Structures are given as structure tokens and as C-alpha cells.
């Protein structure tokens, strides 16, 4: 841990409290076009009940058949989290009645999950690699999602949309290793990043393809774990952090007020920023889990596992280290690898032959700045890595100056034209024609005879003024190094 980062503490009347957080993240396997046990489609936003197979609707005599691609994606995800892949796993039924659950049970994995223990590294401070902390992953299991009830369609009845019913989810269960809202946020962001690198889940929290159950308890630092509450279905990083913050405070106040934290399920209301009790432990369902007799155990062979392993891309941590090895600053490396799209864009830039350090600085400063201003994501960037490489090469080989490069980039963003073409067309090529530079210098010195006198009288700092004026006279196209040289020669 970074010594600079003081541990997160809640100051109560009886002293300081530590918060303990564990997350259960439900990530939809969006890499596959069909559901976990049926061939129905899974596209977001379809008309209600248009993506429902006979199996999803639990018609009599219908049977589930595991979707191999879903299993493959979950295994790849497990591998990306350095987790133990269980070659033998099994599906269990979680039994309960609800109108969005046609089978009357959810097919899940309680006793023998597909993926066992793993871990993930978070940086509590992005700029400081010594702030790294490892968060344990307890397990990942694969399960079906339920459908959706719509209560606002009819005065007295609820409507049921079964489109989501049977969609494949990975439930990624962390250890209670997080100790602050920031750590919970960093964990969720990192997990999302890895899922997106692997491609198993698009991490789209707005569309519900990723959501978290947040387990929170408080204790005096070093004491035994306290009783935890579970806040269900939190659907953004910001809300997860808010839940941790709010729940921890609520629990401290409760305990200090002489009360006890009840082990219960809670819901988060983002409008009021509060959590409220959904059901207590006493009301908890008895899910009567048992092995699903319609399904055989999942047995994975070496060839399948090898294929999963080979298909994994370079993951964010490895990529960051590689970038740093190329001379890129730790901060830039961290920013460039956080999102898979950025990393892909930057890799393409490197492939196009751009010097890494120059390229990274340009992306983080110029490209991000422009995209921010334009409200665009990197996938929407009007300038492709190849086009950017063309621009950066013109700077590197002295064809244009850095100042001109900014101008050229703006024109590229607006017109989509190539950098070289813009430079040619608009005559922006940097000039090393000493005759032209000397002529410009002569004019500048002549026009500012008083300043020349001052300079010669000892006001050395006026040198910059002459450079600026010369560059201006040359419309920015003069080679700055030559301007410097010639000026020094002239001024003596």
C-alpha cells in the first residue's frame, strides 16, 4: 500500500470504524448471440417477448441444452482473472416462484461452480503503482437471468417480458477484501475493463449487462467482521461507491445508537441516495438448491482449455507493463490501458510506426483533449491511428513543427483529410531555407531596433521575443532550431 494513502475510516462517536466490502457482480455474457440453454436471441431493446424460445417459456417437456460458447466465455473470463478453472462443474436449480421465472427455478451453480479462486489487482491511486492492492475472487459461476415484470402497463395487472429470461450471466463473487468506496469503485472499473478486454461482457451498466450486489459491513479496525447487508442490483460504479459510503455510515450510526445491523437484503434508491430494507433473513427464501437432473455435469478437456487460453488477448496489467517498458510514463500507460478501445487504438498507432513516448503524449494530450471537446469516444474518433501516425511522422522528421501539427490536427478532425495532403495543400511545410529565415530576421531586427539595443545592452531574455517575431513572420513554418541558430549569429 502507498504510505501516502491513509486508510478509509468512518469517524463515529466511539472512534474510528473500518468498512468491509465484497461485491457479487452479475455480468451478462454478451459475446454470444444466444441464451445459456436455448437458441433464443439476446439483443438489447427488442420488443417484449420476441426473443423467447419454448425452453425459455418453460413449456411442458422442454429441456435445457448448455450453450458451449457461453461456457467458453466464462472460462476465458476465469483465466483472465488468474482463477482456477474447474474441469468438472455442475448446474443446480435454485427454486422459487415468481412471475418472471417461468421454470419456477433458476439454473445456477451453487455446489460446483465453473471457476474457482482468482484475483484482480487494483490501483487505489492511478498515478502510483505502489498503491496496487490485490482483491480476491472467490468464484465465478454461470447462471440464467430472469425475465422482467412491467407494472406500469395496466391498471390492475403486471405484464411479463421474457426476453431476458435465460440470458447467460456470470456471477463473479469477490472476497470481502475492499476497505473503502474508492476500492470498491476501482475493483468494479478494473473488472469491467478486464471483461471488455476478454470480450465476454460488454460491461454496459446502463443496459443492465453488468450490475452488482454490494455486501457491506463495518467493524472497529482489526476486529472480527460485522454483520453484513446486501444491496441488490446496483447498476453503476458511482452508485456502488455511494452504497458503500451510505451503508457504512448507516451501520455505524445504528450500532452506536445501541442497535444491531440486521442481515438483510436492501435496495438502493439513487434519487434519494438511500438504501432501504427489501427483506430480512427470516423472510429469506429457502431455495432448495439441488443438482439439475436435466443436465449432465460439465466436463472440460485439455483441448478446450488450451483453446480458451490461446484466445485470450493481452490483458490490461500486462499491456501497461509493456508500455512502461517502451518508455511511456506510468500515468500514460495506465490511462492508455484502462479501456480496451483506447488500448486497441494506441496499439494500432504503435504498429503504424510511431515512437511510443511521442505517441502516448500526443494521444493523452491532443487526441483525448479533442475527443473530450467534441464529446466523442475513441471509437468515434474521426482520425484513425494510421492518419494520426502520418501526422506524428511529419513532426518527427521535421516536416512540420509541433505548433503546426496542432493546426493540421484540427483540420484533420474537421475535414477528415490526411496530414500530408493538408500540409502540402496549405503550404504548412516547415522551412529550413536559411535565405528566407535570414530575410525574416533582418526585417524583425530592423523593425525592433530599440529592443535590439536593449538586448545588446544585456537584456538577454528578449531573445525569445525575437524568435517569436521571426516565427510569426514566417507563419510558423520556420524550423525553430534554425531560427535560433541564425538569430544568435545575427545578434552576436
Amino acid at each position: 500500500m502507498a504510505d501516502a494513502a491513509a486508510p478509509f475510516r468512518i469517524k463515529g462517536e466511539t472512534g474510528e470504524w473500518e468498512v468491509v466490502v465484497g461485491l457479487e457482480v452479475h455480468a451478462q455474457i454478451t459475446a454470444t448471440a444466444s441464451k445459456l440453454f436455448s437458441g433464443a436471441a439476446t439483443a438489447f431493446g427488442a420488443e417484449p417477448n420476441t426473443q423467447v424460445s419454448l425452453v425459455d417459456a418453460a413449456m411442458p417437456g422442454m429441456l435445457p441444452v448448455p450453450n458451449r460458447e457461453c461456457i467458453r466465455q466464462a472460462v476465458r473470463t476465469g483465466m483472465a482473472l488468474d482463477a482456477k478453472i474447474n474441469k468438472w462443474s455442475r448446474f443446480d436449480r435454485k427454486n422459487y416462484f415468481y412471475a418472471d421465472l417461468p421454470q419456477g427455478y433458476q439454473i445456477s451453480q451453487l455446489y460446483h461452480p465453473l471457476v474457482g479462486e482468482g484475483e484482480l489487482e487494483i490501483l487505489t491511486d492511478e498515478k502510483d503503482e505502489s498503491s496496487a492492492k490485490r482483491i480476491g475472487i472467490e468464484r465465478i459461476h454461470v447462471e440464467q437471468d430472469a425475465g422482467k415484470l412491467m407494472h406500469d402497463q395496466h391498471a390492475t395487472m403486471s405484464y411479463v417480458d421474457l426476453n431476458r429470461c435465460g440470458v447467460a450471466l456470470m456471477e463473479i463473487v469477490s472476497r470481502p477484501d475492499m476497505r473503502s468506496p474508492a476500492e470498491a469503485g476501482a475493483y468494479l472499473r478494473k473488472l469491467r475493463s478486464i471483461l471488455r478486454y476478454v470480450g465476454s461482457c460488454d460491461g454496459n451498466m446502463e443496459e443492465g449487462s453488468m450490475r452488482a450486489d454490494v455486501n457491506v459491513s463495518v467493524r472497529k479496525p482489526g476486529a472480527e467482521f460485522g454483520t453484513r447487508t446486501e444491496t441488490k442490483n446496483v447498476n453503476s460504479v458511482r452508485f456502488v461507491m455511494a452504497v458503500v459510503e451510505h451503508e457504512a455510515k448507516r451501520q455505524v450510526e445504528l450500532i452506536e445508537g445501541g442497535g444491531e445491523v440486521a442481515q438483510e437484503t436492501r435496495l438502493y434508491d439513487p434519487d434519494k441516495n438511500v438504501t432501504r430494507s427489501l427483506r430480512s433473513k427470516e423472510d429469506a427464501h429457502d431455495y432448495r438448491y439441488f443438482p439439475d437432473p436435466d443436465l449432465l455435469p460439465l466436463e472440460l478437456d485439455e483441448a478446450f482449455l488450451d483453446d480458451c487460453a490461446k484466445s485470450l488477448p493481452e490483458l490490461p496489467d500486462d499491456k501497461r507493463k509493456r508500455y512502461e517498458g517502451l518508455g511511456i510514463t506510468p500515468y500514460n500507460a495506465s490511462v492508455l490501458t484502462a479501456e480496451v478501445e483506447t488500448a486497441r487504438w494506441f496499439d494500432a498507432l504503435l504498429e503504424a510506426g510511431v515512437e511510443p513516448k511521442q505517441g502516448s503524449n500526443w494521444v493523452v494530450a491532443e487526441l483525448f483533449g479533442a475527443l473530450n471537446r467534441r464529446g466523442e469516444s475513441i471509437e468515434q474518433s474521426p482520425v484513425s491511428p494510421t492518419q494520426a501516425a502520418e501526422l506524428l511522422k511529419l513532426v518527427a522528421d521535421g516536416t512540420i513543427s509541433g505548433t503546426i501539427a496542432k493546426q493540421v490536427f484540427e483540420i484533420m478532425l474537421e475535414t477528415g483529410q490526411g496530414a500530408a495532403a493538408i500540409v502540402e495543400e496549405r503550404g504548412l511545410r516547415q522551412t529550413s531555407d536559411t535565405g528566407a529565415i535570414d530575410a525574416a530576421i533582418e526585417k524583425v531586427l530592423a523593425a525592433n531596433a530599440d529592443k535590439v539595443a536593449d538586448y545588446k545592452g544585456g537584456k538577454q531574455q528578449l531573445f525569445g521575443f525575437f524568435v517569436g517575431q521571426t516565427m510569426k513572420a514566417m507563419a510558423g513554418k520556420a524550423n525553430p532550431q534554425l531560427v535560433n541558430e541564425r538569430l544568435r549569429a545575427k545578434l552576436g
Partner: protein
Amino acid sequence: MSELTAKTIAELRDGFRARDFSAREVAEAYNAAVAGAKALNAYAVETPDDALAAADAADKARGNGDLPPLAGIPLGIKDLFATRGVNTTAGSRILKDFKPPYESTVSANLRKAGAGMLGKLNMDEFAMGSSNETSAYGPVISPWRRKGSNVGLTPGGSSGGSAAAVAAGIAPGVTGTDTGGSIRQPAAFTGICGIKPTYGRCSRWGIVSFASSLDQAGPMARTVRDCAILLEAMAGFDPKDSTSLDLPVPRWEANLSSDLKGKCVGIPKEYRIDGVPAEINALWDQGIEWLKDAGATPVEISLPHTKYALPTYYIIAPAEASSNLARYDGVRYGLRVEGEGLNGMYSATRAEGFGAEVKRRIMIGTYVLSAGFYDAYFTKAQKVRALIKQDFRKAFEQCDVILTPTAPSAAFGIGETTDPLAMYLNDVFAVPASLAGVPAMSVPGGLDGQGLPLGLHLIGNELDEQTVLNAGLAIEERAGFTARPEKWW
């Protein structure tokens, strides 16, 4: 029985090909027989047009040479099999008037083989019962009666409509399903043959689930050969059922042989139980003699966990059923009875939709899976099941096929057995093979003192239906069982 309805499936098939009669004549003869046997209550739905359409197609195709194996054969289909556009209710009010938009794999296989459908056969509700008395359509009445008595007898269950139809000559062959004896016990009660193949031989896709790890479809017919013919058409790998066996279907009929030279017949000592009528044990001994006569060597074997089979079954089957039947909730199809809120609707629907036996099993199943009881009941039952499987594995190191009685009694009267536990005892000989997933068959052995059929039960090793059928054939040839119920309906 008309001349045509007296024929076996093999005879119908061969006679049709030899142009002795047309498929339409066969279908019409059976349609008439079905229409004239309403007193048996064997059919829940009659589909004469379906049988005629298939017959006409068969007649039309007869010139072509490559006729499918069951061309010209009309069959009865147990109401547990989903049949497209035709009521499929599993004998339950909760599926009243349910018409699936899909066809079960097994019935689709039979249709592909050229068979027509005479109708849907009555059964115990959700296949839970041994007497057909739990059906929402009312009990099936066996065509058999005790000598000099008019008392209505049960055909057994749960495939009671199936068994009664074959025995009464209102179907030449039928589909049944067997979870813990539901093909074999009714076959024994009605003097016909029925085989439950190895678990996974027949796809469960489209068969209303009772207990998924035990349910298996199988044929019921008058002869061993007919069972072999039907099973060949029904079986086969189905990618839509994860528990389906990805193996080619053996040519059981072509390989039928009653020569058992070199085969050992296991006689399990644990199947000699108290309270079984002497006539049944005598028939068992007779069966051993018949198999010896066919060249087999009897050997005493031990299946030490037999006595735990029934309790194990009555934990596992209800546990799975309690979950499998959760989908009948009034939300999407079948019966809905309005109530206070969602839970009120669930309760009202299921209270009215399910019969007493189904409710009993849902409650047992829910109980054995509930927190605090799961390990004591369900986990332990799974362990015992593994031991029972091991019993059979060891036994088949010593023998090729096992001979036992099929049921501990002959058919009983409707309403005579009211104690559920006494009813469960009917399957005491049938259940171990179900738990082990091995093939087993009942063939008629003779009549008891009251003139009622008794069956002999053959259990084979995993995937070895052939030896079961061959031993069945040897018994059939020697038993010379030709008795038919006297028509009273």
C-alpha cells in the same frame, strides 16, 4: 377383435407390404375398435383422422419400395408426450386443453417411421401412480376381470391407458413412460410386453417431466418382437436432450434370438420378499426353468441395497418432481384460478389444478430438499442410489440378465388400495432398475388362480437391451401366453 386388430405389429407390417390389406383398412379397424371401447376410458383423446391420414400416406407410398418401418401401423400415444395441436394434459386438470405447438422427439420419430396416431392415452396424473386412479379423466378400467366377477380392475399405472389399449386390442402398440415401473407394472397387470430401455436411449424432449433423472420412454405391445420394432423407431440421439445417449440405435429386431446358450441368468436373493403370493414365486421359478431350457445357466446373485430402493426412489423422484412441476403456475398456459395477488393466484391454481397424489409428492419433494433436511434425505438418497447402481454393476460381472417377478401382486380392484404406501409397494421390483438406469422388461408369464395375468421381469446391463429382449423372447416362446381378456365393454 376383428381379424386385423388381432394381428401383431410385425404381422401388420408384413401383411401390409404383401398387400394382404391396406393401411386404411387397418386404421379403420382400429378406429372402430377405439370408438367401441369407451367403457375402458383408455383414451383421453381420440384422433381417428390422424390415423387415417398416416394410413393413406402409407398406402400411397406402398409402391415405392423404400417404405418407412412403421408405414401402415397406427399407435396410441401416452398423454405425457407432447403432440402438436393435440391435447397434451399429462392426465392433469392443470394442463386442461393444453395444445402444444410442438411434437415430442419420440412421437416425431414414430411419425417419421410412418406410424399414425389413434389417440392420446389416459394415465396417472403426471405419471404419478400405479393404478391409473389419479388421472383427471378418471381411472382406466382394465379389460381383464377376475373369473366370475364384474369388479372393475386397474390396468396398473402410470401407463394404464397404454396397457389397457394394447390388452383390449384397441391399439397394436403404444408408447409408455417409466419412471419407477410405469411401463412394466401395467404391462404385467394386462398380460402384454413392455420395455424400459437404458436411461438416455429415448429422448425426453417433449415428454412432460416427472422425475428427469429417471423418466424413460419405451414401447408396450403384445409381443417381444413388436417391442423391439417400436423401440428401434423411438430411440436415438437427440441434441435437444442433454441426457440423451449419443450412440447408434442397435438393430434389436434383426438380432432377436431366443437361444440363450452361454448366458447366465441372475436370480437376486433379495427379491424373495415376504407377502408376495405363492403363485408369483411359483411363476418366477417357472421362468428360471424356461430360461434354462433356452440354454441359460441360472446363478444366485445379490443386490444388497434392494431394500433401500423404494425409499430412495420416493425421495429422489418427488424431489425432482417438486421442482419440475413448479412451471405449472397459471401464468403462461394451462389452468389459471384467480386469487389475491400473485401468490394467491399460484395457490388457487395449483390447489385446483393438481390432484391429491401430485400434491403429496410435491410436498414430499419440497420437504426433502428444504434447508436442514437436504443432507439427511436428498444427499443420502443420492448416495444410496450410487450404491444400487454399483450392486447392478457387480451383478452383471456374474450374469448377463436378471430375472424377477414384475410386480408383487396381480391387478387389484379400482378403489381397493387406498393407502399411498401400500400403493408405492407395487413398484418394489421395478424401482431398482430405474434408479440404476438399466434396461428392464416385463413379459407375460401366465395367469393366476383368478385368471389374471402375471408378468416376469428381465433386467439387463446398461445398453444391453438385446439380451433383455432375447431372454424375453425365450420366455414368450415357452410361456405360450395367448390369453386375452373376454370382451365385456
